[in-house]
């Protein structure tokens, strides 16, 4: 029995040595839940482009992907936030030099109940609602009267404190060093945010634009009192006019080579960028897709 096994092993090794073309390369891809849909679509579409490469995609959040990159268990880490200096140092300590690629942009939409009459909101108002020390607690403080919300209370819907979306909102809207007001409803996933806001007239929440549904109201956002109010859309995210738009990132362990380099090149090509646009995110540049 042992002899048969060892013979088979030798045979497999010999076949593998015959030529790289015969071997299917497997790329491990892990991280951000925001990027999960797109990453899966990329992996599937790429399977048709290059059948010799299989991409295994898993989610778990930006932090999970970055931890895996630090521990060297993943080829490409997806993240909706940049790696912190401490994380880059930790990776270097393990002999891994993370290389960052911007693969798209995500507009963070502000979600309100569809009956909410507010057509626009300013960054200052968002800080007042979500930020520690911000004084906006009632819809009437914003000059709005929301049907179906007799208590007038603003119900803040947020994310759990280590999601990439939460951390990006804190940096981009509340400002570096500032914190969220405690007492928000912290949902475990962007879809839950949309679900709760859809069913709650008093609520305001935030999440990636791609999670929007027909039954949710997304006000335009103005950077300050004098700036124009810009609606969340793929176009405004590409232009950079929408104030809360973030880069979506992929990290490779060192400069990519071989199958990983080909895959990254394809993601940044027009074909790859059309996939991300179809999923409701903004590509890195304007592309024309069929």
């Amino acid at each position: 029995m042992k002899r048969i096994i060892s013979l088979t092993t030798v045979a497999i090794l010999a076949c593998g040595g015959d030529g790289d073309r015969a071997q299917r390369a497997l790329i491990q891809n892990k991280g951000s839940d925001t990027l999960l849909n797109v990453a899966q679509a990329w992996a599937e579409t790429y399977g048709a482009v290059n059948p010799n490469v299989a991409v295994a995609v898993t989610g778990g959040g930006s932090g999970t992907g970055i931890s895996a990159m630090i521990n060297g268990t993943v080829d490409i880490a997806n993240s909706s936030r940049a790696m912190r200096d401490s994380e880059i140092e930790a990776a270097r300590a393990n002999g891994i030099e993370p290389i960052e690629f911007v693969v798209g942009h995500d507009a963070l939409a502000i979600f309100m109940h569809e009956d909410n009459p507010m057509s626009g909101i300013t960054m200052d108002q968002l800080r007042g609602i979500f930020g520690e020390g911000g004084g906006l607690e009632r819809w009437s403080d914003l000059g709005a009267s929301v049907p179906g919300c007799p208590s007038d209370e603003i119900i803040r819907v947020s994310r759990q404190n280590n999601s990439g979306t939460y951390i990006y909102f804190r940096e981009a809207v509340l400002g570096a060093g500032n914190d969220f007001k405690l007492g928000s409803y912290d949902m475990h996933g962007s879809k839950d945010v949309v679900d709760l806001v859809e069913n709650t007239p008093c609520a305001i929440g935030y999440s990636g634009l791609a999670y929007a549904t027909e039954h949710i109201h997304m006000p335009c956002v103005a950077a300050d009192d004098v700036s124009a109010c810009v609606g969340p859309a793929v176009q405004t995210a590409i232009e950079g006019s929408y104030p809360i738009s973030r880069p979506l990132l992929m990290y490779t362990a060192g400069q990519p080579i071989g199958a990983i380099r080909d895959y990254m090149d394809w993601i940044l090509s027009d074909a790859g960028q059309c996939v991300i646009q179809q999923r409701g995110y903004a590509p890195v540049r304007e592309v024309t897709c069929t």
Partner: protein
Amino acid sequence: MSHPRDRTGVMDRRDLAWYADRCAQVLIFAGGISAIVFIIGIFVFVTREGLGFVFGPLDLGQFFSSIEWRPTSDNPGYGALALMVGTLSVTGLAMLFSVPLSLGAALYIGEFAKGKTREALKILVEMLAAIPSVVWGFVGMSIMNPLIIQVFDVPVGLSALNAGIILGLMAAPIMTTIAEDALKAVPDSYREAAEALGATRWEVILKVVIPASKNGLVAAVLLGVGRGFGETMAVLMATGHSINIPTSPFDGVRALTATIASELGDTATGSPHYGSLFTLGIFLFVVTFLINLTADLVVKGIRKK
């Protein structure tokens, strides 16, 4: 553990039966102590991961007195007071709802129901325990949430009340079963003696059966409390996961267990945040251990009588 053959003087008869016997002994012994091994293993693991943080960056005063749970902030805060109050309020509401329900059910099943009704009820109550907790959470989120909004006219239905009701229903089967066992342990001679003295059925239950099974009933409630403390998924979904010292049952709260469940997956191993979550784990472990130990001692109390 001495072997019967030892006494016959035939010491070297190590045949198949002897080995089978030894094997069975070892297997049963391993099964018997496995629970202890696991519990010690888990305790050592949780403590090892958490202690470095407890004796390092953690300010114990802040941990027990502040509500500022901001582990990912630039100025991190590890105040777990709101989480403890959240867990307590949800468990408290659950017990308020569940204790009368389960003790009532146990009294009915144990003292009043007869024959098929009794058997059917027992099976149904135990089936309630088979519903997975994520399904309960789903019920909390998509059925109870709109219902509470409508009935009580509040802005959000995800609250301590919602989770309390869900948790009450989840803890009810275990409490009913144990309470019913306690009632059954009261000898019939007690009931017969009371009835012979002219007591009504109500008097028999209230003045004889319940006092006699008091310890078992207390143990049933304590095990229900333990269940409530440890429940995670349903609580995560139904409370709204909101850091808050509740002033009414309609306020959103956040439980210790739910905090660990929602944050641990995305946290770098060995970071202060990771350590803080394990500290919550140690706290939970100690509290549930004490509750279960008390329940156990109380049950032992009845056996001694």
